[in-house]
């Protein structure tokens, strides 16, 4: 900037700094900043080198068995080579695991498709999900076209994790919106009761809820309503997700000036229109980072369904190393499982950041 002589006042719009200039400005602006940057870089380099040596240089790859691993100072990836199918597919029958893989892909495709803005309409989204779940269920469960039936109790691994996760979010979100709206209801009795309900449920450990859904609910429901354990557990999990998400949405609503609702009313929009077009879109915008938080948490918490006997990824990983020959390789298996989790949750985080940027246009 500064003293550029400008005759007409018509100057070209400012261009962004070059990459190098941006780096210098952002990271090496002052001696202090430069020092901090250097120290950080050195630490990062050290960490990367250590990990690299362990995970790559000194590692035993698929060829070695447990005995070779015992000698090696690095990672023993042989366990993954030997047991990866267990980790990815759990107890799903060995010869049918291609179905599980396809089903997994179907769910992933559904998630990806519904992440694109063009499918965000009240008509398209349910269609996409119904189709996705249809394919998933058909493949996983089988029982037609000569595919042997595989019961829900045998489902496992990544496809189960993804199935539980996506179902919980997809069904939990609408419940969350309802709960949030009820919690803000004008009617004191409803608002209070829902508040107690939300506080009550979110105070419970998820394990207790899953356990209740799996074991105790059958006692409390008439027989025809009991259904399969997996779906009961998903229902309980959804409710759990919903109460958390409801509070997040309420937080987002709290950030809106009252004038917004008033303006909508003054235009004659009814309650639902006001909520769906004015209040919720803005509330979601304010609540996006915590929402992503909650979704990430939910993804990781799917690992708790092991408590009621489902072999999702984490449990399969546990089973993978706790045999006589692989019991020393738990670090490798955990790193592998962590990498799987990281791949998904990190993608979710980046998607959240993308959404934030996209929705940010109008912030003032």
């Amino acid at each position, binding site marked *: 900037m500064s003293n550029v002589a400008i005759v007409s006042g018509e100057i070209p719009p400012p261009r962004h700094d070059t990459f190098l200039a941006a780096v210098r400005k952002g990271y090496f602006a002052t001696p202090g900043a430069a020092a901090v940057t250097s120290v950080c870089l050195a630490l990062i380099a050290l960490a990367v080198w250590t990990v690299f040596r362990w995970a790559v240089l000194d590692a035993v790859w698929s060829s070695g068995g447990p005995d070779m691993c015992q000698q090696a100072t690095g990672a023993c990836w042989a366990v993954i080579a030997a047991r990866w199918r267990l980790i990815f597919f759990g107890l799903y029958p060995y010869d049918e695991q291609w179905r599980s893989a396809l089903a997994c892909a179907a769910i992933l495709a559904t998630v990806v498709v519904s992440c694109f803005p063009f499918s965000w309409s009240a008509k398209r989204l349910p269609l996409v999900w119904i189709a996705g779940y249809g394919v998933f269920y058909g493949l996983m469960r089988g029982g037609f076209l000569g595919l042997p039936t595989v019961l829900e109790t045998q489902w496992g691994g990544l496809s189960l994790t993804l199935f539980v996760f996506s179902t919980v979010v997809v069904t939990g979100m609408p419940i969350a919106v309802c709960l949030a709206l009820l919690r803000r209801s004008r009617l004191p009795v409803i608002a209070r009761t829902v508040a107690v309900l939300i506080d009550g449920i979110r105070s419970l450990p998820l394990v207790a809820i899953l356990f209740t859904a799996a074991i105790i609910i059958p006692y409390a429901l008439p027989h025809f309503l009991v259904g399969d354990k997996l779906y009961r557990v998903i229902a309980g999990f959804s409710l759990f997700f919903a109460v958390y998400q409801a509070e997040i949405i309420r937080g987002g609503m709290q950030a809106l*000036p009252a*004038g*917004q609702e*008033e*303006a*909508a*009313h*003054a*235009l*004659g*929009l*009814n309650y639902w*229109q006001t909520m769906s*077009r*004015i209040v919720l*879109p*803005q509330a979601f*915008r304010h609540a996006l980072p915590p929402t992503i938080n909650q979704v990430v948490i939910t993804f990781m918490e799917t690992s708790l369904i092991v408590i009621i006997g489902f072999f999702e990824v984490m449990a399969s990983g546990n089973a993978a190393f706790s045999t006589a020959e692989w019991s020393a390789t738990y670090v490798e298996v955990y790193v592998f499982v962590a990498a799987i989790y990281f791949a998904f949750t990190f993608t979710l985080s980046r998607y959240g950041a993308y959404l934030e940027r996209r*929705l940010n*246009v*109008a*912030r*003032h």
Partner: protein
Amino acid sequence: MSTQSGEIAVDVKSLAKFYGAHQVLFDVSLSVAAGEKIVICGPSGSGKSTFIRCLNKLEDHQAGTIRMLGTELNEDLANINEIRRDVGMVFQHFNLFPHLTVLENCVLAPMLVRRQDRKAAEEQAMLYLERVKIPQKAGSYPGELSGGQQQRVAIARALCMRPEIMLFDEPTSALDPEMISEVLDVMIELAQDGMTMLCVTHEMGFARKVADRVVFMDKGRIVEEAAPSDFFDNPRHERSKLFLSQILGH
């Protein structure tokens, strides 16, 4: 629900309004015939905004009755929605929807409430945006507009609903004189179309030219209510005299 001239569009009787224990409106009564234009003025904090906010039930009142277009504003749900559909309002603080573009702000209600199709709604919205001189900002978000531009969008948005009664709360406060006269021209046109208008404003020029009556409020009461010529040239009440002397003096 259409009103012919001569019918009573707004009928307020002995209205009282409290915020908690703090009373801000005292025994306000006002009757407005369909097609009439009322200008409400009065010192800051005298309850003008509160009064017109009561008229479409954005605020609950604690005593008295309000009848809009023949329907009493009470606890009847359907009524309130019907009324709001036919009563437009421009807010003192604009209250644009920041997540929607200017155009979307304008077509939202016509599409949802009046069930217009998008194309018709957009065409009509562009018409009003042109009238308030900001068609070029149709694609911008409210956060990218200057104060005056926002106010004009707020006016266009309310007009897009083609309401029978319009409530304006200082619709020209953020505008420059030039734009004020443009906006007032729009309002005068509307007035000539027979729309009932209640307008909180201190544009005395507008009051003189358009208003059928001027209502002067102070401390939550209607102090004086008169034809503009009477009001300006011959105010009866001490308070009004003082007020007018200040205006005309400065």
